[in-house]
């Protein structure tokens, strides 16, 4: 077990049991009594990939509506009751799923189950035009705050649109367009709920200081009578050729503080060995301060402020390898691009060294341990593997699979995928400066008690 940090190869001693209610709701339970807390996580198998043309952003807008009350819970009650019970909660929407989660002190677990069941079964009893209009405005402000009013804020949206062709289910991002958010109607939201929010289109996980029998009895009591239905259409096919077959490119001239080179490489689907190999490859190349790109661009050439790779794992379409380089003052993009291409070509030709493999796998292992360090993190992983791959147990062995990848597999996926004809490129060029700015800097803010 040479470079493995834990005896269980990173599963952290995690175990899980699976159950299914008669209405089709899948339930995953995992016990851990170290801290008196329990996490509830509910994944609905619906994300922005299920949206249709003209209604981008609907899955996410709908997620907001799930917090606007249901038959037994008035107004903001979902938030008020959970927070008043000493719990925390939220929801998020991605390409492939929508999740809702509560972390509760153990003795308040039943409340969270009751709340999730109430909105799964009866949201439409409370949903009205007023909350629709209000949350439409909130989401439009979320879009402005997170994307439109920040330098490079729309890069992800632009690169995604390049990397997945027009009409592809992943061509647009979950936040959606302003025009489509404006166009969404209350009837669209109702239809969305009737189509996708059903017990047989969801996985519920409960992790932490729980009594599994009691928990299952509560789940049966609260969720058991919600009728399942088969209204859901499968998402449009996300299959694409392995290689883009040419370089797609867009140059943006706008008010940004520095030139930037960003790119999205098409990678294997999540759930495959090749995807894990790609993760290791991107970590060696651009994950952290000892990576090849950091050493080359930030340390040696000193042409970049920051340079790295990230990975967007996707199950229903090719994953993306995400390059992000912000240039140093006065440096032009072609110099950066040539250096990146040189490093990628060298890596494809030579593969990683043994030491690079060890470093990358140690980092990926720690990231996995971090995700497992909270009951909420574990609950989310169990749902992820259950929804996307049909088997929550895969969460327990995920880190083992990453540690099992060989240098040859890493080299192979790099040679096959990290090539100029398999990427979408976004280049940022700042608007010409009007006046010299006097530079000052960083303040952080936060809350504490």
């Amino acid at each position, binding site marked *: 077990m040479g470079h493995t940090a834990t005896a269980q190869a990173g599963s952290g001693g995690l175990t899980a049991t699976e159950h299914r209610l008669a209405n089709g709701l899948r339930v995953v339970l995992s016990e851990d009594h170290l801290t008196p807390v329990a996490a509830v996580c509910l994944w609905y198998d619906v994300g922005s990939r299920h949206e249709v043309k003209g209604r981008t952003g609907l899955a996410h807008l709908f997620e907001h509506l799930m917090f606007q009350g249901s038959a037994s819970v008035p107004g903001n009650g979902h938030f008020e009751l959970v927070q008043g019970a000493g719990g925390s909660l939220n929801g998020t929407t991605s390409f492939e799923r929508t999740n809702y989660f509560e972390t509760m002190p153990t003795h308040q677990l039943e409340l969270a189950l009751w709340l999730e069941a109430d909105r799964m079964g009866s949201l439409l009893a409370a949903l009205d035009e007023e909350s629709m209009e209000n949350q439409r405005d909130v989401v439009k402000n979320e879009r402005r*705050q997170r994307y439109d009013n920040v330098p490079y804020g729309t890069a992800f949206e632009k690169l995604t649109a390049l990397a997945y062709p027009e009409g592809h289910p992943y061509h647009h991002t979950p936040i959606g367009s302003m025009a489509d958010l404006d166009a969404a109607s209350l009837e669209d939201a109702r239809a969305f709920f009737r189509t996708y929010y059903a017990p047989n289109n969801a996985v519920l996980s409960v992790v932490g200081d729980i009594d599994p029998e009691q928990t299952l009895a509560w789940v049966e009591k609260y969720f058991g009578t919600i009728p399942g239905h088969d209204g859901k259409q499968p998402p449009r096919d996300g299959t694409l050729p392995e290689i883009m077959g040419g370089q797609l490119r867009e140059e943006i001239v706008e008010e940004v503080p520095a030139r930037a080179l960003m790119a999205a490489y098409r990678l294997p689907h999540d759930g495959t060995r090749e995807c894990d190999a790609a993760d290791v490859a991107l970590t060696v190349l651009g994950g952290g301060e000892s990576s090849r790109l950091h050493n080359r661009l930030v340390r040696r050439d000193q042409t970049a402020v920051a340079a790295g790779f990230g990975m967007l794992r996707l199950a229903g379409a090719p994953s993306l390898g995400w390059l992000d380089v912000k240039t140093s003052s006065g440096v032009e993009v072609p110099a950066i691009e040539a250096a990146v291409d040189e490093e990628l070509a060298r890596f494809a030709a030579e593969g990683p060294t043994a030491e690079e493999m060890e470093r990358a796998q140690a980092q990926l292992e720690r990231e996995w341990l971090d995700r497992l360090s909270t009951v909420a993190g574990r609950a989310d992983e169990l749902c992820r593997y259950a929804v996307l791959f049909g088997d929550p147990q895969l969460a327990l062995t995920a880190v083992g699979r990453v540690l099992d990848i060989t240098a040859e597999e890493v080299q192979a996926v790099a040679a096959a995928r990290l090539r100029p004809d398999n990427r979408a490129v976004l280049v940022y060029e700042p608007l010409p400066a009007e006046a010299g700015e006097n530079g000052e800097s960083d303040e952080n803010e936060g809350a504490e008690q």
Partner: protein
Amino acid sequence: MSDTAAVTMTFHPQPQPGQARPWAFPAPERGALPNGLTVLRCHRPGQQVVAVEVNLAAPLDAEPEGLDGVATIMARALSEGTDKRSAEEFAAELERCGATLDAHADHPGLRVSLEVPASRLHKALGLLAEALRAPAFADSEVDRLVRNRLDEIPHELANPQRRAAKELSRQLFPPTLRMSRPRQGTEETVARIDSAAVRAFYEAHVRPATATAVVVGDLTGIDLDDVLGETLGAWTGDCAEPLPVPPVTADDTGRVVIVDRPGAVQTQLLIGRIGPDRHERVWPAQVLGTYCLGGTLTSRLDKVLREEKGYTYGVRAFGQVLRSTADGKGASMLAISGSVDTPNTGPALDDLWKVLRTLAEGGLTDAERDVAVQNLVGVAPLKFETAAAVAGTLADQVEQELPDDYQARLYAQLAQTGTVEATSAVLAAFPVDRLVTVLVGDAAQIEEPVRALGIGEVTVVTN
């Protein structure tokens, strides 16, 4: 218009809570190494990623005149090569442990944070010790860090939230106070920093006798005394007198400053002043009252600005300790922060002030106070699940000269704080006529509506 046809499930009454299992904020074990290093340790079963925080008594006030940012460059340079390893070798060794190491400088001092799987703690602590006791501070690495830092500055200025924070500090504090200026320096001051300045700052302020290491995680099977002895125990240094701490003063005359961003689709708001730190008795009541005002989306501000009007994705009120000392010379920043869409900037500020005035007139309700206490106290076991969260709080307590059981006692105090105390604390924290409002947004669109509100003199500065 309800859709009862779709509702066919069986409804049950809201369940009542079970019996709460006791939980207490972990009490650390305090000790010291022969070299004078203070050590706080805390065993947290199941937390396989161990968190180590080291506090160094190198406050920003100690930076020499004209060298703002030298503490930041020194913090970064600690991990860029040692007497045994080059910068690249050091980074590689650290990542081989699966570790992360971050260092940053702030007003009260410098903080180095290590996270590593427990099985590799020994090796990673060895690297941390090397960085602390024998940093190379090579000219080439320091020059690179300086250039890199200069390149970062335009990115920070372009970020509306950071730009607002910088302006608020400049407005609140007198120019002579270090707090009025950016923590990581300006282009002018950073450009002056070289390896000699970094080494001089290190030699003046970094030594085990004035440092504290906090180690938290699952320490099963680890002989921490041995491990510490072989690693941080090898760090040597002399003693030092405590540094003088200048008192914090601020001008909170009610006024508005617009940082002009032509074309901005939103206005970033940062409305603040300074208040007491955690040594003051009012702190728990202030935490409670501030939560009721703007701690979450069901608090007073978001109830109106987000959930009724849809002007924002969220506005928060908070208190953040700037510097805190046992002799009561500390201060915290009290602020309200968020962003609102440009056309609704005037109406949003109008509503925000109405919320503050309504609070002043009617006070908090008992129900609000109860929910706030239940949340703030109830979430503690969730909030401190990870080793990193516990270590961070313990290190903050050390840095703020608070006792090791401060957090544990805070929960008891919150539970005992009444509605009247919470009301008076939040009103004292956010008086409507003593707030400095910074708006980063499109002056051409927002200046007139904001002027019309009469919340203070309005000035516009160019970005």
